[in-house]
C-alpha cells in the first residue's frame, strides 16, 4: 500500500509539474510579441565603439529598413563623427529669452520625439526676478510671455565636462565624444535608468513606450547617435543636434529662437560668437557646486 501511495504521489507530482510548466509558459506568452520591435541582429549587435566601418554600414542599413518597416517612412541614417579641433559650447542670454518654448517645439520635431507625450529635451523654467532658486520656478506656465517680473531659463543637457551620467552607466552605453557632446548608443543601453537618476539637470529621457510618430512628420535626416527614432526601453538626451552641428549647421533650438537668446559654436575658434560671449559676458553655470563643469552657460545682459 505504501508503494502505491508513493507511486500515486509521484504521479501527482509529475502532473502538477506539467501543469505548472504549462501555466508558466502561458504566463510568459506575451513575450512572443517582442519580435515586433526587436530582432536577432539587433540583439547581437556590438557596441558602437566596437563596430568597424563595414559593420557600421550594415547596422545603419538595417536600422533604415527597420524604420521603414515599422514607421512607414524612408529615412537616411548616417554615422557622423566629431570634427577635429572642435569643442562645442552653448550660451543662453537670460535677458533676451522670452519663454516662448519655440526651442522646445523645434527639438520635438527635429529629433523625432514621441507625439503622444510631446517629448522634448528642453524644459523652460519661468523664474522670478531676483531669484535663481528653481524651487520658485515653474515649468507649467501657460500665459502670454514674457510676463512682467519673471525671466525664462531653458534647461537641457549641459554636456558636462565631468558628467555623472557617464560614470554611473553600468554598460558604457553613454560617453563623451571628443567634441564635448555626451552621446548614447541606443542599441546598447539596457534601460536601467541609473543615468537618469544621476543627472542633476533633468536632461535624460526614457522611452517608457515605443515612440509614435506619423510617417509624414518624421524628419528623415537622421544619424545613429542623435535623432534616429529610438527603440522602446532606452534612455536618450540632447545631443546638441550633432547631425547638424558636426556639419557646421546651427542646432534646431537655436534656429527656432526668435529673439536670438541662444549662442552656439566652437569655443576653440577665437573669433566665434560663443568665445566672445564667454569672454565678455558674466556667464555662470547651473549647480556649479556639484563639480559637473557644464559647457552650457547662462548670462544676463545687465
Amino acid at each position, binding site marked *: 500500500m505504501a508503494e502505491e501511495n508513493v507511486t500515486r504521489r509521484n504521479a501527482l507530482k509529475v502532473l502538477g509539474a506539467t501543469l505548472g510548466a504549462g501555466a508558466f509558459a502561458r504566463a510568459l506568452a506575451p513575450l512572443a510579441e517582442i519580435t515586433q520591435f526587436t530582432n536577432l541582429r539587433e540583439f547581437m549587435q556590438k*557596441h558602437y565603439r566596437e563596430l568597424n566601418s563595414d559593420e557600421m554600414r550594415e547596422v545603419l542599413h538595417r536600422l533604415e529598413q527597420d524604420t521603414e518597416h515599422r514607421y512607414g517612412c524612408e529615412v537616411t541614417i548616417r554615422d557622423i563623427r566629431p570634427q577635429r579641433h572642435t569643442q562645442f559650447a552653448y550660451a543662453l542670454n537670460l535677458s533676451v529669452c522670452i519663454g516662448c518654448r519655440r526651442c522646445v517645439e523645434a527639438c520635438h520635431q527635429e529629433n523625432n520625439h514621441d507625439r503622444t507625450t510631446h517629448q522634448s529635451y528642453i524644459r523652460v523654467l519661468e523664474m522670478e526676478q531676483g531669484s535663481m532658486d528653481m524651487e520658485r520656478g515653474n515649468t507649467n506656465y501657460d500665459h502670454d510671455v514674457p510676463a512682467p517680473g519673471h525671466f525664462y531659463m531653458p534647461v537641457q543637457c549641459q554636456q558636462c565636462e565631468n558628467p555623472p551620467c557617464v560614470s554611473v552607466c553600468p*554598460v558604457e552605453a553613454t560617453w563623451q565624444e571628443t567634441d564635448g557632446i555626451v552621446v548614447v548608443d541606443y542599441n546598447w543601453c539596457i534601460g*536601467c535608468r541609473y543615468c537618469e537618476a*544621476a543627472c542633476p*539637470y533633468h536632461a535624460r529621457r526614457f522611452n517608457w513606450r515605443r515612440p509614435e510618430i506619423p510617417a509624414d512628420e518624421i524628419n528623415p535626416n537622421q544619424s545613429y547617435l542623435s535623432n534616429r527614432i529610438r527603440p522602446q*526601453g532606452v534612455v536618450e538626451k540632447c545631443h546638441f543636434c550633432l547631425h547638424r552641428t558636426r556639419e557646421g549647421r546651427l542646432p534646431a533650438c537655436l534656429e527656432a529662437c526668435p529673439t536670438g537668446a541662444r549662442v552656439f559654436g566652437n569655443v576653440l575658434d577665437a573669433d566665434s560668437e560663443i568665445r566672445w560671449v564667454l569672454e565678455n559676458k558674466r556667464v555662470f553655470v547651473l*549647480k556649479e557646486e556639484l563639480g559637473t563643469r557644464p559647457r552650457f552657460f547662462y548670462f544676463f545682459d545687465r
Partner: protein
Amino acid sequence: MTDANHTTHHARTYPRFLWYVLGRATDGSWLFYTWMFVLTAIALVGANAWAHQVVRGMAATGMSDHVSWGLYISNFTFLVGLAAGGVMMVIPAYLYGDHDMHDVVIIGELLAIAAITMALMFVVGDLGRPDRFWHLIPGIGRLHWPVSMLTWDVVVLNGYLLINLHVCGYIIYQRWLGRRPNPRWYLPFVFLSIVWAFSIHTVTAFLYSGLGGRPFWNSALLAPRFLASAFVTGPAFIVLTLQIVARVTTFRIPEGAIRHLLSIVRITVLINLFMVGSEVFTAFYTGGVHATAARYLFVGLHGHTELVPWIWTAIAFNTFAAIVVLSPPLCARRWLLNVALAMTFVGVWIEKGMGLITPGFVPSTLHELVPYHPSLTEWKVTAGVWAFGLMVFTVALKVGLHGMSRPITEEVA
C-alpha cells in the same frame, strides 16, 4: 557510493543528491502543498504582468522621467538589506563559538540566498531592455567596472549568492552523505561572507549616496543607515521564521538563538531610529534645498502629502517595536513580540522604499513636484517576486533542515 578506501565518486553521488533535493522539495503535508500552490499562483500572475511590461514598455508602471525608480528598486534595496542581515547569525556562531547559533545559522544563509534571488529578480524586472542583459557580462559585454557603482553591485550580489550557495550546498551535501563537513571547505567562505554581507549593502547605499544631483541621498549617513536597518530586518525575520519552523516541523529551535537575535535587534532598532532622527534634524534645521525633499516626505510640500502617512506609520511601527523589544515584561509575551517584529519589518520596508527612493526624486532636479503612485502592474510583479522568493526560501529550509538533521555516519579525516 564509497569504496573500501573511503573515496567518494561525486560524479555519481551528486546527481543522486540533486534527486534527493527535488524529492524533499516536493514532499510535504497538505499545508505545504497549499502554501506552495498559492505562492505559485501569485508568482505566475507576477510573471505575466512582467511579460506585458516588457512588450508594452515601462509605461505600464507608474514611473515617469521625474520619478524614474519606484517600487522595484525600493524592494531591491530592502532585500539586499535582508540578505545582509542574515549574516548577523554567522558572526556569533563562528566568531564567538555560540553553539546555539551554530545549529540555526544555516537558516540565515538560506535566507540570504532567497533574498538575493529576489533582489536580482527585481533589478531585472526594472530594466527597460532585459533582453540586453548580456551587455553586463564582462568579456562579452562591457561592464563599466570599477567606475559605475552599479557594476560593483552586480559583482558583489552575485558573489554573495555564490558564497552562500557554496556554503549551504556543501554543508547539506556532506550531511546527506552522512559526513561531518570539513571546515576547510566552508569556514573561509563563511568568514568571507561576513565581510561580504557588509559590502553588499554598503555598495547598494553608495549607488544613491554618490549622486551629487540628489541632495536627499547625498549623505554620508546613508550607508550606515542601510546597515542598521538591514540588521533590524534580518534578525527579526529569522526569529519569526524560527518560530514558524518550530511549529510546522519537528526541528528543535534552541531558545538561545532567539535570545541572541533579539539582543541584536534591540541595539539596531535604536540605532536605526537615532539615524532617522539625525537625518530629520539635519534636514529641517538647515533648511534650504536639502529640506524640500524631507519636507515633502514628513509634512508635505506644495499641497502634496502622498508620502506623509507612510513615513509616520513606519516611524510609529519602529518605535513601537523598539519599546516592545526593550521592555522585558512586554518582550516576554511571545505574541506581542512577534507582532512587534513583524511591524518593524514592515516599517523598515516602508522606510527604505517610500521613505528613501521616492523622496530622492521628489522634487525633481528642476524642482518639479511630480508624485509617484505604483501601478497595478508594479504591484503584481512585486507580489510575484516575493511569492517566488518565499517559495525558494521554503524549499531551501525544507531541504536544509532535513539535511542537517541526518545523522553523521562516518568521519572524514
